[in-house]
């Protein structure tokens, strides 16, 4: 069995949003849509405060509430744990958006572009009408993963089989891999570090781990 997860070292993240930009470029998301973003959190009370940068997005939960509520079965989960959306089945009811505890889902009802009504050449080239009026979210760059695996590459190790946000991370905070493989990079990180997952009380078993202390890789 395989389950792909993301492991983020909060000690390393500097909030540069390079992952956000890499995701937007790779997936050609429209203005206002951020499948990967980094929230900037202030913890504590002045003057005793700490600033935390936290990459967020679809947590590819093992028990995804978005999939449970989806009336059309457009949202599904692959055998490798990646939660997907079939844009041809989705009716755009947005039920998944309100069911997601992580604010990871978006719906664009009409095309919007970076510079007004006229798309740039790049936007025109990459515009996909199938994405209008339906739910969308982070895919863990599933096409890249599948393409890489078909070439014998290893997700999380080989860049050509790894999500764009992880490839772009300048501080090495973001890591991706198979948590079911005890020898994978993510399994090693989780063994050697203390970690948590967000909103675990929701019972979604998210596939997004945050390291906060332990051995430094």
């Amino acid at each position, binding site marked *: 069995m395989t389950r792909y997860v993301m492991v983020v*070292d*909060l*000690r390393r993240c500097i909030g540069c949003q390079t992952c956000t930009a890499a995701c937007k470029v790779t997936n050609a998301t429209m203005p206002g849509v951020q499948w990967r*973003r980094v*929230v*900037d*959190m*202030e*913890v*504590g009370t002045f003057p005793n405060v*700490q600033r*935390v940068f*936290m990459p*967020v997005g679809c947590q590819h939960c093992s028990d995804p*509430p978005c*999939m*449970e*509520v*989806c*009336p*059309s*079965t*457009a949202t599904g989960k692959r055998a490798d744990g990646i939660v997907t959306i079939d844009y041809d*089945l*989705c*009716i*755009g*009811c*947005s*039920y998944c*958006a*309100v*069911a*997601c*505890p*992580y*604010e990871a*889902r978006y*719906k664009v*009802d009409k095309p919007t572009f970076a510079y007004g009504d006229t798309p740039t050449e790049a936007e025109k080239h990459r515009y996909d009408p199938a994405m*209008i*009026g*339906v739910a969308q979210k982070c895919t863990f760059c599933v096409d890249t993963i599948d393409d890489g695996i078909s070439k014998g590459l290893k997700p999380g190790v080989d860049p050509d089989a790894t999500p764009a946000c992880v490839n772009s991370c300048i501080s090495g905070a973001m890591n991706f891999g198979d948590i079911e493989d005890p020898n994978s990079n993510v399994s090693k990180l989780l063994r050697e570090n*203390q970690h*948590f997952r*967000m*909103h675990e009380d*929701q019972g*979604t078993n998210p596939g997004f781990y*945050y*390291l*906060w*202390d332990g051995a430094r890789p």
Partner: protein
Amino acid sequence: MNIGTIPKLQRAWDLRAACNFIGGGTGTGLLVFAAISALAGWPFAAAGLVALAFVGFGLSMVWLEIGKPLRAVNVFFHPQTSWMTREGIVALPLFALAALAVVLALGRPDLGRLAAPVMAVAAAIGLGFLYCQARILRAAKGIRAWSEPAILPLILTSGLAEGAGVYLVLIGLMGAALPWASALALALCAARYAAWRHYRARLGATGAPAGTLAALHHAEPLVAWAGHAAPAVLLVLALAGVLPDLMAVLAGIALAVTGWFIKVTIVLRAAQSNGFAVVHTPVRGRGTSRAGDRPGWQLPHQKG
């Protein structure tokens, strides 16, 4: 400074979604009163038709909200776990049976005796529809105001109270005053207020976004006084024989409008997202970690 971490009002569902809960609740509640009328041998066709109009209005508003209306049939694909699918499936026999009961009552006097049991079955299915609506909200884990389990009795009692309100208005317009309807409406008025208070108490006791609690707190005076105290007094007066027609109609309006107000408040104004939380801050710099935080939330230990 917190950027992007604080709970914010959901924008995925707007007034059209709220109208589905309004139409569905009022319509199914009214269907129950129509069924009681039918079983008691009183006219019920008008109430049945208005009930169907309410449910149909609600579903139409949802249809207008979805991004791909021409794919609406896909809503039936996931009965295994989706309460939205189940709502859609239940709507079919609800419409068919309620419409059949009305047709039998109005168009086929020879088969009129069948109308009452058919309407009773339609009302029972209507209760199922109402339950599906409550579970739709309950399953939305991204919105604390909806996922609170105490939303179930609130949506159920509100739907019935709204239906009672519209029924009182309908029979009032027809010049009738039915004490049983006023008494039942009074009981539903009390039940809904109890459910509302329980819902608010549970959110406060288990933690919720501060914006959610504030929106519900701001709604309290209207819900308590205009929405429940006033109709309760009016219904007591009606039962005591003081201008019963007028008192029942006024109470009915208050009961129905309050239910709609509660739903608009919960679906639109109190619907804050979960925001984001850190359980432990990362160890860096001074080498210490602190307990995490959930910006924008009011947790039980922070009360008072």
